């Protein structure tokens, strides 16, 4: 396909389909994330990038025969490699013998949370998740460094006015429906954030949904209106505050005599401490993810509106 617009739409559909694969394979948390990221934000970001770079592909493919040979050789070797793998759904496979039984049988006593994915994410492998959050933060800062535009105030005002009039004459239904839906989207994001301990959900998904709400607002009401509502400096500091909150919980648990990110010491009983720690670090994750997604989107769009 030469038209990048169609390519990106297909990618979005692929994201949604893979989310349904994940549901079929019992990974509800992952499906939730993939549906909001793969089918939502990723499609949107690629579309914005394409409006900046042009939507048609014009080069010839280089040496497709050689590429096919390389690809089929790799694929053949990989399939040969799978012949020794355990069968799909086999309960005695080595991967289910190592640490997974402890997570499944002991996590209720140790953390008191029914959602095992959340307790592994936030408690057992909290250090790992801290690293992931730092990577997300760094990627957000990278986009900021690459795409940031210093704006001149005069042009800002003129553009804000023109977009304002444009939006008030057109897209009436879109605007009203967006206004009605927005509180529910943000409320749902908060529900996902704080219900993540008990059902599917958590900081990563909630952050993405919250950001999607703000991005929807920016798309319908114009970037400048959205910037007026969501202060840029505030969002930037929020992304750092999320990481600091996460690291801070670790430092506090160290000062109270435990290991880094060992929440047992945060409250009177280990289970209450785990609850508090998991709640706080999920909040940190949610803040960082939401802020970084908003930063990324605003900076892509800011480039496009460049006079």
């Amino acid at each position: 396909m030469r038209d990048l617009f169609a390519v990106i739409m297909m990618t979005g559909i692929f994201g949604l389909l893979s989310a349904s694969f994940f549901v079929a394979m019992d990974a509800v948390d992952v499906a939730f994330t993939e549906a909001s990221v793969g089918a939502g934000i990723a499609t949107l970001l690629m579309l914005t990038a394409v409006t900046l770079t042009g939507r048609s592909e014009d080069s010839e493919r280089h040496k497709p025969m050689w590429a096919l040979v390389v690809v089929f050789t790799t694929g053949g070797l990989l399939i040969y490699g799978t012949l020794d793998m355990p069968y799909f759904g086999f309960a005695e496979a080595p991967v289910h013998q190592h640490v997974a039984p402890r997570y499944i049988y002991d996590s209720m006593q140790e953390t008191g949370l029914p959602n095992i994915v959340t307790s592994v994410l936030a408690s057992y492998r909290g250090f790992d998740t801290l690293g992931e959050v730092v990577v997300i933060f760094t990627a957000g800062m990278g986009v900021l460094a690459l795409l940031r535009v210093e704006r001149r105030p005069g042009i800002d005002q003129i553009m804000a006015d023109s977009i304002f009039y444009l939006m008030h004459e057109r897209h009436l239904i879109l605007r009203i429906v967006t206004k009605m839906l927005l509180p529910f989207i943000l409320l749902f994001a908060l529900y996902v954030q704080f219900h993540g301990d008990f059902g599917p959900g958590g900081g990563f998904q909630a952050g993405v949904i919250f950001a999607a709400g703000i991005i929807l607002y920016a798309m319908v009401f114009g970037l400048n209106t959205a910037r007026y509502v969501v202060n840029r400096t505030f969002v930037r500091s929020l992304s750092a505050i999320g990481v600091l909150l996460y690291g801070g919980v670790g430092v506090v648990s160290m000062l109270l005599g435990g290991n880094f990110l060992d929440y047992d010491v945060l409250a009177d009983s280990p289970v209450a401490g785990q609850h508090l720690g998991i709640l706080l670090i999920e909040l940190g994750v949610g803040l960082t993810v939401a802020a970084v997604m908003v930063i990324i989107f605003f900076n892509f769009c800011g480039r496009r509106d460049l006079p």
Partner: protein
Amino acid sequence: MILGLYNYWVVVVLMMIGFYIVIAHGNLIKKIVGLSIFQTAVFIFYISIAKVDDATAPILEEGISKYSNPLPHVLILTAIVVGIATVALGLALAVRLNEAYGSIEEESIQNQDNQEC
């Protein structure tokens, strides 16, 4: 039964598609799309490993004793969000390249570089 391995073959085919797009196409946006297909193939690989027959999602509930393995779910959940952040970084680089060279085609960028030398 060798057909019990079909989940890995689906993953390998998806990976081959993504890999082909990355090496055969010159358009940078398409390369990023290819990379994200490759990435999703890896996600499906991990999640299919975690699947246990007749088990349910790993949320503890009275009266259920078989759960699928939660560890790959955790790894992939975070990897998806990290993946979108890195894809955004790649797109940002493509946008900057387009501003500098007026094109996101690999060959045209290469030609302009060669002329300058």
